[in-house]
């Protein structure tokens, strides 16, 4: 097990180095001079030169990259061009909101998907199965920004049950904090719920056909134990894979969700920085989210090997 984790960790290092090269080149290599992009086309040459010198853009790229990477490894991602706040500080300030949103969205989607997936596999072709298949097809194609607007319209404006936008930190009022995250979490989690439902249903159908399930049934075990203990465990392996693959999608969609619901999270920070042309923030957030994604993939791989020990041998 430890050997497997070690091997996966080692394989991640070169990947992260390449990722850092790509993120670095976002500001430095792609067409467009960051100084011009920041100050605008009409800036005079002296001001541009001063900004370039201040940011170290006048030195060779390799030197710049080495220095940038060295600082990044120590947690220094530069400073915001607008506010001069350290980028790392800006990200860490907003991280709790994003993490809370992600945790809520995942919880809600699993609470919907797991029972729905199981029931629709066990009662194949029933009304529940039909409804869950429809949900799986629709949920995956629903644009989340539209779903968010519908939720705001129905639950905040018409029924007035929940706040339309904004965020209350849990430190201020736990109840209000949860309420402020209900609609964003549903918005973010619906697509995941749809995918997991579908995956779990087909995984369960596959497993329920296996010989060992028939053996368990022949032994006279109750349907509950056969489904819950024998079948579900194996069907969940595929679900873990889907969730792992979807973390990237979730991270991207937090940007839309946070922007729609005015949540002060990392995604919102990125959008604001894109509009303010604050490239170090954009660069920092991309690096941060991507490293987070790579790490979460690593965790999924490890989890996967716990659920299915055969994977470790490959």
């Amino acid at each position, binding site marked *: 097990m430890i050997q497997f984790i070690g091997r996966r960790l080692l394989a991640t290092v070169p990947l992260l180095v390449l990722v850092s090269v790509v993120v670095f080149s*976002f500001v430095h290599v792609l067409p467009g001079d960051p100084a011009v992009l920041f100050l605008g086309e009409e800036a005079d040459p002296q001001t541009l030169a001063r900004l370039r010198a201040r940011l170290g853009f006048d030195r060779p790229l390799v030197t710049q990259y080495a220095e940038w990477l060295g600082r990044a490894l120590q947690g220094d991602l530069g400073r915001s061009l607008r506010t001069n706040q350290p980028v790392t500080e800006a990200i860490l300030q907003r991280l709790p909101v994003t993490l809370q949103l992600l945790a809520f969205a995942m919880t809600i989607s699993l609470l919907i998907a797991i029972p729905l997936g199981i029931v629709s596999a066990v009662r194949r072709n029933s009304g529940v199965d039909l409804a869950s298949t429809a949900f799986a097809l629709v949920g995956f194609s629903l644009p989340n920004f539209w779903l968010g607007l519908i939720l705001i319209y129905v639950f905040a404006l018409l029924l007035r049950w929940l706040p339309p936008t904004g965020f209350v930190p849990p430190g201020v009022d736990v109840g209000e904090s949860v309420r402020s995250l209900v609609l964003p979490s549903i918005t973010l989690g619906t697509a995941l719920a749809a995918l997991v439902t579908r995956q779990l249903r087909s995984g369960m159908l596959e497993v329920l056909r296996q010989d060992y399930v028939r053996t368990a049934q022949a032994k006279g075990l109750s349907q509950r134990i056969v489904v819950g203990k024998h079948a579900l465990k194996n069907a969940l392996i595929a679900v873990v894979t889907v969730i792992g693959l979807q973390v990237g999608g979730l991270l991207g969609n937090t940007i839309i969700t946070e922007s729609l619901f005015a949540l002060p999270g990392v995604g919102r920070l990125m959008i604001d920085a*894109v509009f303010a042309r604050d490239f170090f923030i954009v660069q920092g957030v991309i690096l941060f989210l991507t490293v987070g994604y790579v790490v979460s993939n690593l965790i999924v791989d490890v989890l996967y090997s716990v659920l299915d020990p055969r994977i470790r041998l490959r």
Partner: protein
Amino acid sequence: MPPAGLTAIAVRQFRRSWVGLTGAALVGLFLLVTALAPVLAPYDPIATDFASVLAPPSPAHPFGTDDIGRDILSRVIHGSRVSLQAGLFTVAVALAVGLPLGLAAGFFGGRVDDLIMRGIEVILAFPTLVLALGITAVLGPKLIHALFAIGIVFVPHFARLIRGQVLSVKENDFVAAARALGASDLRVIRLHVLPNCLAPILVQSSFSIAFAILTEAALSFLGLGTQPPTPSWGIMLASGRGYLEQAPWLGAFPGLAIFLTVLGFNLLGDGIRDALDPRLKV
């Protein structure tokens, strides 16, 4: 192409699946609207009419009008063109880059394969929308940049798919036979490998078009894709956001249009995939 028998079986399978047929109908409707947009749209999509601002749906304006009196039905109809453009352009970019990469990786193997697959892993390491947003941010908020960004994000999916297909096709006896007859690499790829990759490419393209339409709308919704006054469904939704309580129809119809189109391409992809390989049917 697979032998006629297999194609016929696939077509028969497809005709029997309500998923695929619903998808085909929705996609057909979408294509029809795009093609006939100037004929179908009752008004000029960017003509303002300050006499009827935020008018609710009525016989004169079936989908109502927006905050500066533009006819929403006409804008939804014309907006379909931006979406189609988004879907086709991104898949074209993804194929233009991903097809040669996948073919080379699968066909030549060894170092070429290693190098290409490493590069692809790097792109896959980024969360999709984050990467698209980053590219758009650096290039500047223009539709073409957004589409290019989405296309690049799709490259790994096509390259991997094609590589896998090549790996399985190249083991076939007919490839060995072609080689024995002295066929060059290029000829083997063109006549034997490529035609066998078409079906999976078709399936992947359908899913990719769905995702591209969704992503273009998302980027435009955030203000980073299509720029006004061009009617794009994402922009229309964004402007509807401010009038949610007063005039919910502003966002309702473009949202519905995005949803039905994306659903159509997803179902079509599902249908074709199931028809080609009934074992995968869910």
